[in-house]
């Protein structure tokens, strides 16, 4: 039964199209256009000067952008690895228990649902040199206070630790949903064959979970590129460029340096890189899924 009530169809899709066109497509075109100009704020208006590809040519020499890109990719790879390991263990744990299931689920939801700025603030206090809890605890072990956020090599690790803490719960959530939707008869068959818990995980749960695991990895990897709030509060990309990430470089170019052209170029290149990663990961996913079938 299909109705030819075309008016409704157009009216119901119009708002979403308007929003997507005006607030995502036009800005995208705008960013692309601006990337060929040198744009300065002058006397209450933007002054455009066409410079062609100059920004693009100069971008590799930009002090922040490439180090930031490298850091972002490194951060994604390291954090996703640890998040998957911790997340899988926790999800498995929650799926095994009967009492307290919803309590633990709620508990592990908190980091996802609470304001990242608060999480950044808390961790900034905990990482504090003089008054932070980590150095306080280390002092009992007789370790000298560490400069968690001021030391170039340690600062990056501090950001990694925070990101793992922040987003492991998200992995838990997705993997738990995957585990709970696995067919139970496979497990019963396994139990009749007398498998123990360990081989059940290795031979049943993990192989069956492969599609969910891949989706989760892809998702977390790409979403890590959005990291901003924590960096803004913890390190502002420093010391030097040790914790610089692409979102922060773009923010600095647009809003601190008031260099709209440069910010646009960084945005265009970042969008290109992220899209490329999305395409590559989707292709890999498709191949693995085909293989798994």
């Amino acid at each position, binding site marked *: *039964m*299909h*109705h030819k*009530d075309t008016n409704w*169809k157009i009216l*119901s*899709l119009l708002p*979403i*199209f308007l929003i*997507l066109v005006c*607030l*995502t497509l*036009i*800005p995208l075109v*705008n960013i692309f256009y*601006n990337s060929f100009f040198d744009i300065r704020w002058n006397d209450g208006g*933007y002054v455009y000067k066409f410079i062609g590809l100059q920004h693009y040519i100069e971008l590799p020499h930009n002090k922040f952008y490439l180090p930031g890109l490298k850091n972002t990719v490194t951060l994604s790879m390291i954090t996703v690895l640890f998040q998957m390991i*911790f997340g899988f*263990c*926790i999800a498995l744990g*929650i799926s*095994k*228990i009967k009492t*307290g299931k*919803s309590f*633990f*689920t709620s508990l*592990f*939801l*908190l*980091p996802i*649902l*609470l*304001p*990242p*700025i*608060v*999480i950044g*603030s*808390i961790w900034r*206090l*905990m990482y504090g040199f*003089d*008054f932070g809890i980590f150095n306080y605890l280390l002092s009992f072990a007789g370790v000298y206070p560490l400069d968690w956020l001021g030391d170039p090599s340690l600062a990056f690790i501090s950001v990694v630790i925070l990101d793992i*803490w922040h987003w492991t719960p998200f992995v838990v*959530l*997705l993997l738990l*949903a995957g585990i709970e939707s696995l067919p139970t008869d496979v497990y019963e068959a396994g139990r009749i064959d007398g498998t123990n818990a360990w081989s059940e995980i290795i031979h049943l749960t993990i192989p069956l979970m492969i599609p969910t695991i891949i989706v989760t990895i892809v998702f977390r990897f*790409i979403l890590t590129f*959005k990291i*901003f*709030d924590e960096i*803004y*509060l913890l390190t502002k990309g420093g010391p030097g460029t040790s914790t610089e990430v692409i*979102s922060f470089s*773009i923010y600095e170019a647009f809003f601190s340096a008031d260099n709209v052209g440069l*910010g646009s170029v960084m*945005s265009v290149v970042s*969008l290109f890189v*992220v899209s490329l990663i999305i395409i590559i990961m989707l292709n890999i996913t498709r191949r693995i899924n085909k293989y798994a079938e």
Partner: protein
Amino acid sequence: MQSKTEKIITYSFLSFFGCVVLFPFLWIGMMAFKKQIDILMMKIIFKPTLFNFEKIFFSKEATFFDDIFNSLVVGISSTIIILIVCSMASFTMIRLRIPQWITAILFLWVIVFHMLPPITFVGAWFMMASSFGLFNSRIALILAHTTINLPLGLLIISSFMRDVPTEIQEAAFVDGCSNRQVYFNVILPLLRPGLFAAAVIVFLFSWNDFMVAMNLTAKATQTVPVSIATFSQQYEVRYGEMAAGSLVSLIPALILTFFAQKYIVKGLTAGAVK
């Protein structure tokens, strides 16, 4: 079928990670009730005080009530817009016959947009807002939050839409209902859990957003996260006020997690796995 040791190991493992998750919040909760001097001296035992809360709410330069108001206006408005826009669109795309390519392109673009770093768009939004005279108005931020959270809203509502049984809809069409009537009288009531899940998640994400709000607002329209960040920006970090502000900002999420946990879990997984 589990042995007792297995059970004990599982529970202690989960409790350990639970403590790791909870510890920072307990620590900041304690700090909110400490005086600056007690914080700096790392006192474990201290006399609780409401000084920090008084300061953020009632001191002369306090803006926290305004900030909460701004956050609520922006969060509620963008949530309502998203619910209306996405429920209509997903009904038409999933339940009515329209050319396949429209649905395909729309979903593809929404998913890609969802994955792109929002900062890449904020610069352009900022320029659009200032050229329309909308900078430092709540309208700009409402539109920005609507756009940013639209993908999540659409994915969640669509996944619930697929679970709405088709028979009732077909019966309504046989009775001669128009598309509009079916949407209002059949789909919306059945979609209530999905709308609720989407509303909770979208509202929380709007309430939590710092990056977009910081760049599109100034003092008069700043939201709670922006205000909290300023406590750490001054020459002297105001730990107590930062902790107190943070604690207040956690309230919506804590209440919603407590009452709507089932919906949040369902919504977040629906929004991610599709």
